[in-house]
């Protein structure tokens, strides 16, 4: 394949050309309630070409028939010439790489019969259904894939990779009369079959919680000190801050650039945030991004101050900064754009930080918001739905509450993070991130427990 790609490259008349080819084997098994909904195996394959002529814009071509490779290389070149761009697009310098990077498959899913995948999922689904007859419905999904990946560019980078991905998710729906509650379990790793064994306990736990939520009161809306558990804190930093640190948002927008000026204070000195594309085994981890740039651990906020951002080669050159290996595409159907990998709030052990107990010790009345049903950010405003919450009363975790929705302004909220615990963990979840029509991109988030001194909790806005 590499020979075929380098031959196609040599025929390109553009000043810069890159070609990606992917072949993906995947299986998916779905249970809904006790019914097996589907068990399917798929094979997806295709290529992507991007070309740049001096003075031209990006010419892009994607295709599923590899017989069309040469024609599509030529087409990308024509398209680049057809869209003059001034000032011209420049690419940040990066070292070239020639690598055969076969990630640890940890039990190649391609060697496991689909019947066995069905049995595994059936057991996890059964763990949810077995909790109570209040569990009226479940959705359990197993998905795996292995992508064989080739990348070449006209500057000499040649890559061949095997990229595994395996995810499990479970939704348990509990119902009593008109009240419906749900619990959500999600597991995802850039590994293989062995890494998804022995996971029944997590599925059982979310079903138990869904049942417990039937009796839980709605949280009373208002402003509280809020402690985010590591999962919600991770989702928060990804959604509310991470996207603003993607340089394609700022690089050609002077006002945005000003808002995101390096050196600006974003939080108290306890706040440290980064994006780490090299942390082993995580879904956002890869040796190289989809422009052939080596990935890295990029610090974004250090001691409360904005110090970095995420770049592609193009945004780095435009801003006079260094590429960070964050140009990613969800598949050959798309161009690489600036994306996160594994985004985190760093844990703060004592003396600066502390334990979970330290965070809640002086809270008279607060909300402990746990897990995430979803989150959305629109620029500086965000809204997150926690999976469940617990009230904090007089420094102690108290009763379960539901419908905990956090809403606020990013800048204010980051600045109100006043306490961070030392209990950092990565949330190894499935799902993924969406941006510019590219969804789902495998990413991971990580955080310790985090305290916001004051945040608006919705849920029952007085009717």
């Amino acid at each position, binding site marked *: 394949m590499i020979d075929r790609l380098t031959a196609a490259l040599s025929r390109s008349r553009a000043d810069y050309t890159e070609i990606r080819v992917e072949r993906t084997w995947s299986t998916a098994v779905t249970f809904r309630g006790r019914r097996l909904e589907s068990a399917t195996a798929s094979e997806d394959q295709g290529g992507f070409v991007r070309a740049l002529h001096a003075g031209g814009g990006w010419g*892009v071509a994607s295709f599923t028939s590899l017989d069309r490779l040469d024609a599509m290389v030529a087409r990308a070149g024509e398209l680049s010439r057809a869209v003059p761009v001034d000032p011209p697009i420049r690419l940040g310098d990066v070292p070239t790489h020639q690598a055969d990077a076969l990630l640890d498959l940890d039990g190649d899913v391609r060697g496991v019969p689909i019947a066995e995948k069905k049995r595994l999922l059936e057991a996890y689904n059964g763990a949810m259904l077995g909790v109570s007859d209040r569990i009226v419905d479940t959705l359990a999904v197993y998905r795996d894939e292995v992508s064989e990946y080739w990348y070449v560019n006209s500057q000499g980078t040649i890559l061949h990779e095997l990229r595994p991905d395996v995810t499990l998710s479970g939704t348990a729906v509990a119902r009593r009369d008109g009240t419906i509650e749900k619990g959500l379990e999600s597991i995802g790793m850039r590994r293989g079959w062995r890494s998804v064994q022995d996971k029944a306990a997590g599925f059982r736990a979310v079903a138990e919680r869904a049942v417990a939520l039937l009796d839980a009161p709605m949280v009373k809306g208002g402003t509280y000190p809020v402690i985010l558990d590591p999962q919600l804190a991770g989702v928060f930093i990804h959604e509310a801050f991470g996207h603003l640190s993607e340089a394609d948002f700022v690089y050609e927008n002077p006002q945005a650039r000003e808002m995101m000026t390096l050196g600006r204070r974003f939080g108290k000195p306890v706040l440290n945030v980064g994006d780490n594309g090299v942390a082993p085994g995580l879904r956002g981890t890869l040796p190289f991004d989809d422009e052939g740039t080596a990935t890295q651990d990029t610090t974004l906020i250090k001691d409360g101050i904005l110090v970095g951002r995420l770049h592609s080669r193009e945004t780095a050159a435009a801003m006079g900064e260094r590429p960070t290996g964050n140009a990613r595409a969800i598949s050959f159907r798309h161009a690489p754009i600036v994306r996160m990998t594994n985004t985190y709030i760093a844990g703060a052990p004592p003396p600066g930080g502390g334990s979970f107990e330290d965070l809640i010790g002086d809270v008279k009345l607060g909300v402990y918001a746990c897990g995430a049903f979803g989150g959305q950010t629109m620029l500086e405003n965000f809204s997150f739905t926690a999976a469940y919450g617990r009230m904090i009363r007089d420094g102690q975790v108290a009763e379960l509450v539901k419908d905990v929705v956090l809403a606020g302004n990013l800048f204010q909220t980051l600045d109100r993070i006043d306490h961070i615990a030392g209990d950092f963990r990565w949330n190894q979840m499935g799902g993924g991130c969406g941006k510019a029509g590219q969804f789902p991109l495998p990413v991971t988030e990580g955080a310790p427990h985090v305290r916001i001194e004051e945040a608006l909790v919705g849920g029952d806005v007085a009717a």
Partner: protein
Amino acid sequence: MIAQLIDAARRRADGGADALWRRVERTTVAFEWGRLKSAAATEEAGANLRVRHRGRVGVAGTTAVGGNEVGAQHAAPLLDRALASAELGEQSDLVFPAAGPLPPLTTCFDRAANASLDELIGIGRSLLARLEREGCRVNVAIERETTVTRVANSAGAGGEYRSTAFGVSADVWRIAGDDVLVVSDALEGADVPSDEALAALVASINARLDHALRVVASPEGTLPVVFTPAGLSALMLPVTQALSGKAVLQGISPLGAKVGQEVFDARFSITDDPLRIDRATSRPLDDECVPSRATCLVERGVVQRFIYDLETAARAKAESTGNGQRAIFGKPVPGYTNIVLNDGGAQHAAPRQLGGGLLEDIRDGLLVDELIGVGQGNVIGGAFSHPVALAYRIERGEVTGRVKDAAVAGNAYELWKRVAGFGADARWTGSRWAPSVLFEGVSVARR
């Protein structure tokens, strides 16, 4: 041909088969932050095969299909995988439909099919010129697409059609300090949009931007709130989810037991209509060979029926409503085509007034154009609570400025019971046709 795939499948699957083959060819140009940035071409083809064997259903998909056919060398492994999937697959009584007459429908428009790269760039430039203003940055994307779809089944039904789609989207960004404002709009149709439609898009963005420049305090309390056609999503989503036969089968639809009952305002009707002219989602038959027809789901407040594909219909002992949708990968699912709220009527091309004439009698209230977090949480239950992304204060019948730190909450089913007014500004937002709608008594909180 896809017929050969079906023939091969019929010989090995005792309960028959159906298949979809689709080829998409697309051109896109993108203007980023005010300048032309990229042009892209896509050629994609793939096939999805479903078999029924020993009472069980199996599905397989592939993009390894060669250029214009599902060749024999590709058909055999696809069939093997579908049969392997059926060994584990669910038991289903689904019946592949026999051939029936297809409704006449134009799905392919020559101007869209033949639009050149220069034409796309020209449309983008003209929009850019009309949207650019001091202190703002504009993104524009123009896309044209031609698709060939073939579907067939072992009962002799099938069809082939060529369709076009043309999309124009624009968003204007204004960042002042830490205040980020984005106003956007899009046109999605089957043909190249008319000059009037493009002018309406420009006018819609500019009007909302002009009103947004001034930031005012949010009102608070239980207030009249107008949801624009775009802002209506939070109120439509629970209803459309609840009208899906799949949700009814799962026992999670609040409308599941309400057929024949008047549960909405008597002026509220919803139809799924795959036969609308000039819509990219319109088609003569669905992806499971069922001829298209309009399906009235709610008529004058009364729940009529739910949407089904073949499989959910078989389970519900109902008939498919022709809402089978399938992608290259995965199995068919029931999905909406064009959701039409109330009568439909002719599409307005001329610029429309913000609020559709519903603002006049409002002393103090809100106009909601976009909310944050729609689709999160327990949507089908009807309760919603969302911060606003783009909303305006209405005072004494007029828009007085943009409201930033407000949240609206309510229950969609309760609100649809008593609609205070429908606007005269019905339009397409994506694949939904709806006017602005005024509700009294929506909870508005300020933060």
